Each structure stands twice: as C-alpha cells, then as structure tokens.
C-alpha cells in the first residue's frame, strides 16, 4: 500500500529502526513516541543508562515538530522511564517505573468506552462483567 510507505517515518539507532510513527494512527504523535520508547525499554532494547538522542535531534530524525518530542520526553520523565539532566541530555532510568500511570489512564478510558458500548447494546452489568472475564480468559489461553 503506497499510503503506508508515505506516511511512516522511522528513526534508526545504531542502524536499527527503533521508532516508527504512523500518520494513520489517530492518536497524538507524542503519545506514539512515548509508547514506542516505553516498549523499547520494557523489552530491554534500551537498557538502563542508554543515552537518548537530544530533543532537537530526534525531532529532526523523525521529521516531527520539536514540541512533539519535548512533550514525549517530559511525560516519560514524569513516569520515571527516563531521567534528564540539564545540559547532559536524557538517559533511560536505572529503575524505569514502568509507566503505570499512563497505562492505568489508558485502561480507564478503554473501560469507559466499553461501558458505553455495552449500554448502547443494552447489556446488564452482570453481562458486562461476564464478557470482561471471558476476555481475560481468552488472553490467558493465548499466552500459554
């Protein structure tokens, strides 16, 4: 699909592609940056102490605005994924407090959306609980 080729921007770190942004993703770009850096940290691609590119450098490499990266770094710093020292740039934190805050907020909004859809379909609270339990069981089965 040509659209995909044109809308995806990737950044290479040590010759490896490490961030890929998609314009067809309806979320804000800074959220995509946050999510991808958090994933990289979570799976160990970016071990503690890894230096991240400067805000302006990453913005230039991804061809996105400086403010996008600034906001992503700020949020990553707040949730403890990275630490920034004035004038020294950002590094992956020693004990990345893996971002429970953001994931929690995300879960919250998905649950609200599910509740809304449920009420549109006229499902009862018990029925919704049963469906949620079912979804959890399905996931466990897949992971085994």
């Amino acid at each position, binding site marked *: 699909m040509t659209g995909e080729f044109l809308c995806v921007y990737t950044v290479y770190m040590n010759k490896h592609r490490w961030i890929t942004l998609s314009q067809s993703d309806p979320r804000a770009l800074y959220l995509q940056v946050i999510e991808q850096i958090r994933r990289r940290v979570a799976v160990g691609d970016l071990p503690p102490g890894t230096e991240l590119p400067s805000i302006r450098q990453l913005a230039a490499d991804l061809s996105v605005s400086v403010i996008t990266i*600034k906001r992503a770094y700020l949020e990553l710093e707040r949730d403890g994924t990275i630490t920034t020292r004035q004038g020294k740039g950002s590094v992956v934190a020693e004990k990345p407090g893996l971002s429970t805050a953001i994931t929690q907020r995300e879960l919250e909004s998905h649950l609200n959306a599910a509740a809304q859809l449920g009420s549109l379909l006229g499902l009862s609270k018990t029925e919704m609980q049963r469906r949620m339990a079912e979804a959890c069981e399905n996931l466990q089965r897949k992971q085994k």
Partner: protein
Amino acid sequence: MSIAIAPPHTKTAAAALRGVARTFKHFRLDNIDLEIEQGTVNGLIGPNGAGKSTIMRIMMGLLTPDTGTVSVLGQPISSREAGAKRDIGFFSDDMRLYKSETVAFHLQFVRSLFPGWDEAYAQQLLSRFGLIAGQKVRGLSHGQRVKCLLLLILARRPKLLILDEPTNGLDPVARQEVLSELMQIVSDETRTILYSSHNTQDVEQISDTITFIDRGRVIARNNRDEFLERWRRIRVQAPANWQAPAIAGLRPESTFGNLRVLTLDRYQAGVEDRLQLSGATLESSETMSLEEIFVAAVMRGREENEL
C-alpha cells in the same frame, strides 16, 4: 489529558507582527498579531486567498502595512536595509529560474551574491534532493524546480526562513525530502521557519505552532496535539425540544432529526456526563483530524464574523 509544558527559559522572537492591517480593493488583512519564536517551526494554514502570502510579503518588507508594526530578527522592518535581508530566506512559488541555464549556473550565481553561502551544504543538498548540477532548468520537473529554488535559499544558511507554499504541487516523496530538510535546519535552535500551506497535512507534522488564517484574520493558533486534544465531534440522541447545556465552545454541526452532531473546541473530561445529564443519550465522542478541525474552525470563524 492535559500536560503543562514548561515554558522555555527565554523566548526570543524571530519575528513579530503587531496590529498589522492593510486594505486592498477586494481584500482586507485585519489586525494581525503574530509572534514567531526563535528555533521553532511555524505553520500558516489558510484557504486560498486567506492572506498567507500577504502576511509573508509584509514580513519581507515587500508590502507596507497601513497600520501596525513589524519586526524581523530584532529590527523594525521599515528601517531594514538590503544587507539585513541576508539573514532571511524567502521562497515563493512565483520565483523564476533562467530556463536556458543549468542548476550549477544558479548555484554559482547566488554564491557570488551571498558571502554566507555554504558550498559543502549546497553539494549535500544537491545530492539529497536528487538534482543534477549540469541539467538545464528547462528540463526540470515542477518538483525539481521547487527543490532547486529551496537549495538556493537554504545554502545561504539564513536565520529565518519564510516559505510561501513550499510543498505545493510536490509529490509525496519530494514533500518528505523537503520537510525532513527543514527539520534538520531547526536542529540548530537559532534558526526559525515560517511556512504556509493550504493543506493541513503539509504543516501538521513538523510545526511547533500552527496558525489558522481565514479571510485576512487569525482564527486559531496552537500546536497540533493541543488542537487534537481540544476538539471533539460528539454525537447524541436527543428529543426535539432538547436544549444543549451551556458548555463553552459547544456548537451544533447538524440539528436534523433526533441524532445531533456537535463540535466542541474546548474539550474537558466530564463533558460527556454533562450531556447525558441534560437528557441526551451519548452515541459517540470522537477526536478529529487536523483537517477537520481546520475546516470547523474556519466555518465557526465565518459564522461569528457574519453575525
């Protein structure tokens, strides 16, 4: 979710327009206030004929405003001499190259006029833009001609770039080449870019600040993600006599039948609950693309202006 962004320590304006107005026979530029912060990329979006080029021409001193003040790179525009324009790079689609001369001729020509010319950078750009030095301008495609013009401006290493529709008519690959080159430029935080387009897609990706212009007025100004977070399209089911609750920035988009579509430009958590409490049933609350937001903002601006 709103996140406070720490204000940059020192805000230096690369350019500022204050209360700028200019009346033409069929068009009026009305009280424009615009501050361009150093080190940022600023997108100017507006429909054709909105006043984007007029604003840029005023900043370049090519047009004088009837009222208001303009300062560029710390100097009032009125007292600017040709020498001071060395630090500004201006691009406009109606600039011409010599058809029967080569790309190399133009590089040589501009180089002889500007002492700040960076030949190594010019050569890099030549290869990054896929241009051939020995090719005559007559044989260039539209995209190559635009890239050649941009090269001639960028290689002078200006402090402020004022680009009028630089990506207009470019194919997606060429557009990407140009956008990524612009971002490389602001990796140096003393350089600033102002560029215009009638297409939100050209502007949204790299702009720190996006300004919507319509009919000679600034109608909204923000960064992309902030625009996306503030605007919502909300669909509700409501009885015929339903009155929308007084929520700041909430407007009906369509009021036909029981299903109503509303747009909101100041979204806050809890808005959906307030709508439910007012007797409407919420169907959905969606984020909008920047293009949809742009169109909605233009329409709102026009309605308000006509009241």
